[in-house]
Structure formats: structure tokens, C-alpha cells
């Protein structure tokens, strides 16, 4: 049992370090995106409307701004909401890897956190789907380019849900095993 644990620890530590670093990078990236979008939005509404043409990394919503402030606010809000949720998703992933114990990887806390990740991913997918419909409808009135990766997050939610289910089963087996001993 001890050798298997050591084996798991050694094999996983490399993968774990990579995931941890990437998760931090993505978390910081999405946090910056959410903050930058919020500040650009506030500047475009209260200071200078031309900021709406360079919201974040070439995101140009000037045409929607000129069409209606309500629709402009709606689209920006959807962008900020998805960015915040994506940052939260990766924050949860960082938390999972901070709390996981390689000697005893199956705990209910970790299983619940993985389930939470799948729900957050599902929420991002659903919001992106709504946003996609909304922006498709808007693009019939004004020209603008937007991108929402709805299917990717919905698929990710499904896969992580399977993982969470398996993790919960493993927790049950581990608990049963400990009780038997």
C-alpha cells in the first residue's frame, strides 16, 4: 500500500506541478480580463465613449454602444460574468490541488469541490449559450465580432461530472475500507 502511494505521489507530482502552474496562469489571466473589461466599461460610459472600441484585446463594441447603452451594458456584463466565472473555476482547481493529500487522495471535500467545478463549468456554458443567442440577434442589427466557447464548457462540465461521480465512489470505498480495518 505504501509503495503504491509513493508511486502515485511520484507519478502525479510532475503532472500536479504543471496543472498548478497553468491553473495559476489562467486564473490570473481571467481575473485581469474581468477587471480590465469592468474598468474599460466604466470609462466608456462615464469618461470617454471611444473606449468602447478597445474594450479588451481588440474587442470592439462601439457599434452596439451607438445602437443602445442598454444592449451595450448587457453584452459587456455577459463578458464580465463569464470571465469572473472562468477565473472562479480555475481558483477552485487551484484549491483542489492545494487541499489534495497524495497519501489519501479521496476525501469528500475534494469530491465536493470537483462537483462544484462541474457546476461552474455548466453555468459558464449556459451563460455563453445565452450570450451567443443574444449577440447573434444583435449582430443582425449592427456589425460586430464576438466569440463564446459555449460547447467547450458544456462538454467540460459533462466530463468533470463523471470524474466527480467516480471520486465520490472512491471516497465511499475508502471509507468502507477504513471502517473494515
Amino acid at each position: 500500500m505504501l509503495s503504491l502511494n509513493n508511486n502515485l505521489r511520484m507519478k502525479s507530482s510532475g503532472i500536479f506541478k504543471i496543472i498548478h502552474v497553468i491553473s495559476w496562469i489562467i486564473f490570473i489571466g481571467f481575473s485581469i480580463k474581468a477587471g480590465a473589461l469592468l474598468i474599460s466599461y466604466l470609462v466608456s460610459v462615464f469618461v470617454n465613449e471611444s473606449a468602447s472600441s478597445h474594450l479588451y484585446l481588440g474587442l470592439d463594441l462601439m457599434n452596439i454602444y451607438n445602437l443602445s447603452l442598454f444592449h451595450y451594458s448587457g453584452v459587456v456584463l455577459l463578458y464580465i460574468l463569464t470571465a469572473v466565472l472562468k477565473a472562479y473555476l480555475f481558483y477552485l482547481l487551484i484549491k483542489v490541488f492545494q487541499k489534495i493529500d497524495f497519501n489519501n487522495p479521496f476525501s469528500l471535500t475534494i469530491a465536493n469541490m470537483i462537483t462544484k467545478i462541474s457546476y461552474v463549468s455548466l453555468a459558464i456554458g449556459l451563460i455563453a449559450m445565452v450570450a451567443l443567442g443574444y449577440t447573434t440577434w444583435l449582430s443582425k442589427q449592427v456589425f460586430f465580432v464576438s466569440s463564446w466557447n459555449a460547447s467547450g464548457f458544456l462538454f467540460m462540465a459533462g466530463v468533470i461530472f463523471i470524474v466527480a461521480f467516480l471520486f465520490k465512489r472512491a471516497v465511499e470505498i475508502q471509507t468502507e475500507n477504513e471502517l473494515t480495518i
Partner: protein
Amino acid sequence: MKTVKLLKTCIDIYYYFVMIAMVLGLLTLPILLFTTGSYEVNLFDSQTVDIGHLGTLKTLVLIVLMLVIFGVYFYTIRLIKKTVDVMSKGNYFSDYVIANFSRIGKLFIICAIGFSLIRFAFRLIVSSTFSFGINTAFFILLIMGLFMMFLSEAFNQAKRLKNENDLTI
């Protein structure tokens, strides 16, 4: 058990959608070789790219690259479908499921690199710009791949625990 079956249905639907898209792609993409008309390709929910005006060789390179990478992606989905099929029968920690998790992880990483490669090829061939950028889709696929590989290791331990448990009883 109910959730797994529900999930199985969802993944089955997604699998058949991807399969239909693949078949349609296989049928329509080669037509591009014989046409000079406008043909817009949507690259993963981002802006569309017109590849209808490209020469035969350039179009062929892009078509082959797209078919190979999407083929790998389709195979990954197929593997997930097969794994969930086995799981829905109650075999949660079988060698097959654990090995598949590791394989799915590796394939996700290949897809992450492959999709970035497609974007790179499109930029190079269509707009003649040499740039290699990584986007969210790349990171998500990479994270999922590595996570799957890690879980495959963890579930190996769960399998051992289960065997131990069965023997004790």
C-alpha cells in the same frame, strides 16, 4: 447511477452530433479543391476565415490538417462515450476505465496542441503571418488532459482499495 445514465445520454447525443459534423466535413471539404468560390470556415467559435480563394495545394494542406486534428478529437469523444458505457454498467474502477482515462488525457493534450497548430497554419497560409498564440481553448484542453492523467493514477489506487475491500468481505 441515474446521473451516470443521464450523462451517458448527453454524451451519446454529443457524440452523434460530432459524428454528423465529421461526415459532413469529410463530404464538403474536398469540394473546396475544385472550387474558387467563397467558403468561410468558423474556427472554434471565433471569427470566420475565407479559404475558398486559396490554391489547391494550400487548401489540401489545410483540409488534411483539419481532418486529422478533428479526427483525433472525434476519437477522444468516442473513447469517453465507451468509458461511460462501461461505467453505466457499474464497472467504475476496471482496468479498462483507468487505462481509458489516461488515454483520454493524452488525446486531450494532442488536441490542445493540434488546435493551436490549425490556427497557426491558417494564419500562415491565409493571411501570411507567422504567429503562434495560445488561447483559452488550448489551456482548457491542456488542463483537462493533465487532470485526466492525474485521475487515472488516483483511480488506480481506488481500484486497489476496492479489491482489498472485496477480499475482506
